[in-house]
């Protein structure tokens, strides 16, 4: 298959959570290291929060992958909203026990209390999109962390659930609270260029000037998910022009016009 620079560049920005696509930025890597350090501490829960699209899922996935060699870590990317199913999955992951019937919280607590830890390291459960869990479920997760036989890392959006987490009885159990934020202009430039260079799209990586990055940052506010969407559409439009009207594009610099067209198409600009 023939290599097309715009097509390859476009596919780089497909909105998927893949640790291979993880871009190490200075600020994020500092947060990542502090989170790894806090896992070794005798804490019960770690809270990871931020606006949608700030890279929580990617962050959690990356952490999970790196911990697998040293910890018994289990990532729940999609919330298990059924309570019985949640406890059955926990029993399976923590103790290798399979339940065919129902498993309620009381039964699971009995199991947890009866089981001893295999080693000095407490098993780690990483819960993504934890804002989708109900309040009662969160209370049960809190009680489970009180047994000190399982540790939870909870990633959630900044919603009402966060207020619940912030309540006093939760605060006493959360020992580490980490906030993820949108990228700055410089970080966004590094993010875009590193992502493209990782896919050997050096020509398109060099197309981005500070001015065009500023415009992208103005449109997306440094949100990684929005940036990915915008960049995907941007290269899709470039691909369209290349195939239909190649005279209208300049391969040396990203056109602000096409950036704005991408933003209009993705709904980031209301026009």
């Amino acid at each position: 298959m023939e290599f097309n620079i715009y097509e390859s560049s476009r596919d780089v920005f497909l909105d998927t959570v893949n640790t291979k696509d993880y871009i190490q930025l200075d600020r994020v890597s500092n947060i990542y290291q502090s989170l790894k350090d806090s896992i070794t501490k005798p804490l019960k829960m770690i809270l990871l929060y931020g606006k949608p699209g700030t890279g929580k899922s990617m962050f959690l996935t990356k952490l999970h992958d790196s911990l697998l060699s040293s910890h018994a870590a289990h990532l729940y990317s999609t919330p298990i909203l059924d309570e019985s199913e949640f406890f059955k999955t926990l029993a399976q992951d923590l103790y290798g026990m399979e339940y065919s019937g129902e498993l309620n919280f009381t039964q699971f607590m009995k199991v947890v209390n009866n089981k001893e830890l295999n080693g000095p390291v407490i098993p780690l459960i990483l819960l993504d999109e934890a804002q989708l869990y109900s309040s009662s479920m969160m209370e049960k997760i809190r009680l489970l962390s009180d047994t000190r036989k399982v540790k939870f890392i909870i990633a959630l959006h900044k919603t009402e659930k966060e207020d619940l987490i912030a309540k006093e009885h939760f605060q006493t159990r959360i020992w580490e609270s980490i906030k993820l934020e949108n990228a700055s202009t410089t970080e966004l430039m590094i993010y875009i260029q590193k992502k493209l260079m990782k896919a050997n799209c050096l020509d398109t990586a060099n197309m981005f000037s500070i001015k065009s990055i500023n415009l992208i940052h103005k449109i997306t506010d440094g949100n990684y998910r929005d940036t990915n969407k915008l960049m995907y559409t941007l290269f899709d439009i470039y691909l369209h022009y290349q195939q239909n009207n190649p005279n209208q594009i300049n391969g040396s610099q990203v056109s602000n016009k096409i950036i704005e067209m991408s933003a209009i198409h993705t709904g980031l600009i209301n026009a």
Partner: protein
Amino acid sequence: MLNINDLEIRQKNYKLKSYIRYFMIFIILIIISIFAVFLFNYNSVSTVDTNTNILKNKESSLTQDTKIKKQETAEHSNIIKKEITIDKPQEEVIITKEEKLKLFPSLDFIRKIQSSTLNYYEDNTNIQKSVTKKEISIEKKKTIISEASEEKKVVEKPILPIETKNIINIKRKNSNDDIGHVITRFKVNNNPALSLFIAKKYYQLKEYENAYNYALITNEINNNIEASWIIFAKSLVKLKKKDMAIKTLKRYINYSHSSQAKLLLNEILTGKFK
């Protein structure tokens, strides 16, 4: 699915909207600036006027030196020259006041109080010289004057030139306009003294026909006024009616035995008066 044409149109509209925002801001700024400039100009009309006055005064001050030189050479020779020299220091005082703007109080009230003395201008040339220097203030002038005279005079001297201005104005008004004013007064009260005054003035102005008429009018009102006969005869001579003048004078001499009329008659007959 990408609809590039639609996207291009929407992008153009978006761009236009964004430009309209800046355009509106630009227009508003221009309107504000125009309004501000208008207000500024409106408020600064008075200051502009004062500036033009200052410029005019500066121009007049440039001619000042030459005038003063004339003044020095004239040295109290005649009244006209005195008037010129009087005008100069008066203007100079105004200039120094305007250049100092509002820092000095108005001395108008002192001018009104003080009585004028022409001797001051004849005697004191120091004041005129000091006035020629633009930057010297009124206070400095006072100190210069105080060196030459007593303290009482110090107050009077810088003010005196202004008072003499009134005298000058009166002299300058001795013109046809003033005769016209006297004529209107004469028409009201029919006073032969006024008509005689008019006749004399017209004679001085070499308007002999008018002088003849008003002398005749005076004579009709009162035929015993010697001066009216004299002016009447003189005007006739000037109007090249010498015979009529001689005839009239002879009649008057027979009637009144006026010595002045006789003298005039002799002068006319001998050809001394033409």
